[in-house]
């Protein structure tokens, strides 16, 4: 006998057979988050507009080649700038408000050195070749940069350089203990690799401007400041009174000679400091004389400190008023400059009039007080037909357009500004050729980093950076909960005693480990570094991974607009804005 089987009795209970995915909770939203990469303050401060937050992000991930290429898009001279740039990026670095600024320059140099050591060839975006050719006067940083950017844009360039080697002030004005010529040579070689032709030992004069019209469609003038403009001191024209620039040139050529005894270097800028430091290395006792206060010296505080560590005696607040020759030496009379009515008067004749004097005996005198164009034609003409841009001046002539760039047209005379002027010139010429003069200002504005003075070539070439918001990330917008205090990299250097004994490079190389660790300290202001916080903390699983460059997107069918992703993004790479309604698709940049 088997037991009775019953038909199943009715059984309707609360249980599940569907998921909640049928509920499109995105309809709840009144605020909408979106990925909105922004501009980092370092990129704004960098005259060359380097995408520094991204460079450091790539470096921290060990993607050194990619990081290096990211620099090269905006600046052909990472190895140079990493060594000698005044790094305004570090001055505005948001991390400084947390613990210490990132040592960006050290990483930039590391990337260039690593690429060179491994003989890497960069993969750069280039536009197709164009027919126009541009003639460049001067193979200094601005001319080389202009040619480099023009080459990226597809234009052929010929650079005419007076000296036997290219580089301009980089080769002939910066001593090798700051910038070894090998590092410079590598980077110039890469410019040549793009097809740029450099004609050395080929000085050009004023007629060059007109002559070039027959062979080239435009001219770039980047001749730099080659002439010392004098001290207004009696006796400065005496034979034997030398130019600091000339000393630097000789040192760069390898025949600085030997010095001994007290040597005066008059001036307070970069050239003066370096001349003084060369004097020490050549055996002399350098006395640096500067007419204003030490804090007014254009040279960087660090440079001055290093000069003093090497034995340079700095006498600030002393103006050179008279030079007399005496038995093969010089008597140099200095007067204490008392500032009347404040700083403005300090350098004036009336300012110099007051104060006590001091006369010193020196074996040599080098003037390095300030520099101007060697010849008048190297400067842009005054008057109409001139378009003054941020770092260059565009002049329209019957013989074709001319762009003046570099130190001669920049109040800030730095290698980064030189690169900036080369880039600006290249973009301006590209626009002039392709679209006409009226397109220049709007396009430069579109390419500007953070809406300020620097330009991005990547933006001009419509790379991903052109989509980035120009809002500049402030420290208050960083979620510092995700960072721990960690000290800034200490740059390894030659011991103090060793430095002044030779022209060997003072800053030593750092390991990849150190470079990555330092790069990791970067907040990566404004850009996504794939930290995944947005996806991790989303209560609604509305951030999904995908194949896009950002690696993720927001599923607006379910996103309730809580905004946690935006707050927990440590680097303000997202924005929360009012939901405009289902028809509004703007802001989603995929």
């Amino acid at each position: 006998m088997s037991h009775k089987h019953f038909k199943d009795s009715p059984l309707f209970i609360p249980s599940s057979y569907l998921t909640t995915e049928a509920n499109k909770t995105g309809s709840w939203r009144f605020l909408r988050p979106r990925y909105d990469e922004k501009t980092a303050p370092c990129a704004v401060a960098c005259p060359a507009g380097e995408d520094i937050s991204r460079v450091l992000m790539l470096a921290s991930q060990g993607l050194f080649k990619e990081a290096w290429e990211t620099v090269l898009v905006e600046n052909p001279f990472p190895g140079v700038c990493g060594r000698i740039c005044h790094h305004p990026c570090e001055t505005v670095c948001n991390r400084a408000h947390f613990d210490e600024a990132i040592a960006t320059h050290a990483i930039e140099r590391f990337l260039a050195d690593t690429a060179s050591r491994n003989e890497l060839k960069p993969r750069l975006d280039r536009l197709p070749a164009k027919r126009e050719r541009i003639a460049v006067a001067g193979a200094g940083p601005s001319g080389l940069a202009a040619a480099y950017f023009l080459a990226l844009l597809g234009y052929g360039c010929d650079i005419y350089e007076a000296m036997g080697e290219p580089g301009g002030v980089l080769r002939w004005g910066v001593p090798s203990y700051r910038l070894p010529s090998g590092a410079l040579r590598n980077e110039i070689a890469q410019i040549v690799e793009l097809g740029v032709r450099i004609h050395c030992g080929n000085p050009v004069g004023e007629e060059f401007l007109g002559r070039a019209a027959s062979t080239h469609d435009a001219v770039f003038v980047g001749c730099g400041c080659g002439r010392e403009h004098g001290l207004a001191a009696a006796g400065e024209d005496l034979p034997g009174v030398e130019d600091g620039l000339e000393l630097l040139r000789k040192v760069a050529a390898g025949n600085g000679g030997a010095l001994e005894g007290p040597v005066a270097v008059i001036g307070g800028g970069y050239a003066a400091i370096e001349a003084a430091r060369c004097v020490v290395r050549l055996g002399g006792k350098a006395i640096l004389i500067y007419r204003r206060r030490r804090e007014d010296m254009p040279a960087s505080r660090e440079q001055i400190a290093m000069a003093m560590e090497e034995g340079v005696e700095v006498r600030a607040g002393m103006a050179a008023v008279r030079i007399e020759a005496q038995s093969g030496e010089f008597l140099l009379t200095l007067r204490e400059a008392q500032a009347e009515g404040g700083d403005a008067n300090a350098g004036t004749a009336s300012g110099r009039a007051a104060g006590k004097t001091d006369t010193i005996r020196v074996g040599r005198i080098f003037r390095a007080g300030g520099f101007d164009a060697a010849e008048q034609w190297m400067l842009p003409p005054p008057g109409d037909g001139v378009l003054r841009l941020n770092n260059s001046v565009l002049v329209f002539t019957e013989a074709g357009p001319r762009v003046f760039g570099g130190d001669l047209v920049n109040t800030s005379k730095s290698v980064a500004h030189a690169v900036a002027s080369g880039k600006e010139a290249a973009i301006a010429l590209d626009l002039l050729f392709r679209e006409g003069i009226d397109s220049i200002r709007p396009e430069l504005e579109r390419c500007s980093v953070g809406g300020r003075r620097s330009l991005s070539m990547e933006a001009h070439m419509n790379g991903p950076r052109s989509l980035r918001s120009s809002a500049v990330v402030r420290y208050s917008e960083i979620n510092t909960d995700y960072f721990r205090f960690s000290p800034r990299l200490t740059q390894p250097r030659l011991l103090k005693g060793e430095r002044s004994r030779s022209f060997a490079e003072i800053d030593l190389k750092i390991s990849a480990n150190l470079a990555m660790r330092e790069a990791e300290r970067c907040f990566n202001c404004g850009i996504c570094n794939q930290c995944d916080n947005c996806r991790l903390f989303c209560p609604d699983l509305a951030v999904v991974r995908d194949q896009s460059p950002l690696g993720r997107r927001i599923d607006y069918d379910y996103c309730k607009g809580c905004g946690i992703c935006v707050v927990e993004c440590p680097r303000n790479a997202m924005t929360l804005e009012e939901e405009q309604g289902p028809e509004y698709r703007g802001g989603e940049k995929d």
Partner: protein
Amino acid sequence: MELDVVDREYMYCGHVACAGCGAAIAMRFVLKALGEKTVMAIPACCWSIIAGAYPQSSLQIPVIHTAFETGGAVASGVRAALDVKGDTETTVITWAGDGGTFDIGFQALSGAVERNEDFLYVCYDNEAYMNTGVQRSSSTPYGAWTTTTPSREWKKMRKKNIVEALVAHRIPYAATASIAYPEDLVRKVKKAKAMKGSKFIHIFASCPTGWRIPSEMSIKIARMAVQTNIFPLYEVEGGVRYTINLSPRGYLVKEYFGLQGRFKHLAESDLDQIQQMVDEDWEFLQRRARAMPA
């Protein structure tokens, strides 16, 4: 941040938790740590709703919804059933709010722990009866507004220390965790899963709706609760071995309170008093940890 967990989700979108719900975030992390061989009992709480109404479920594991007081008891029954069928691998977890843990569910929890039932009890704590409209529970902190402790009658009882109450049972494992510290949370859940006997994890889960904070501050507030030592992260093994996981810089309580509407009625003197209470509790915890280290 890298979480050392399987990069798989055990929750579906489309659940009806409030925007910014800390309890939803807590569930996500806990399930990642537990995986799919898990049976969950959910007594009455916000998650009774978030888990989906008939015929939906927002979770990819089997769930049994139960009455309010029964979290510990139902889990005991589920465990017994699995054991008698020869399955000692599947994790049994009770997922309850603070009301169903500290108050009405305390007896069943205490009973289950005293019997050392082999299950994990997770209390996600949003510090009031949120599902019914922000009424006070014994987990509501000293000083908070709720609908049953309105501003002039704000709660003047201290938050019940549930972890210490269970530690007194010599529970094999009890720990606090926070949605703002996911790696720590996941580590603790995995640690608990690997142990036999009763395990309790007390998760701090922000509630924008009930705490009167903007929804985007959910994680940040949770982090600050830890950083002010109001909700310290620590674990206790066997009821005797203490490990404090984090010794934060100790942000001021008033900074944490100042961001939340539920505390805005407090006067400066109240905040000072509360700061003293927090400092005192933190000191006591440290003393216990020193006296009974892991």
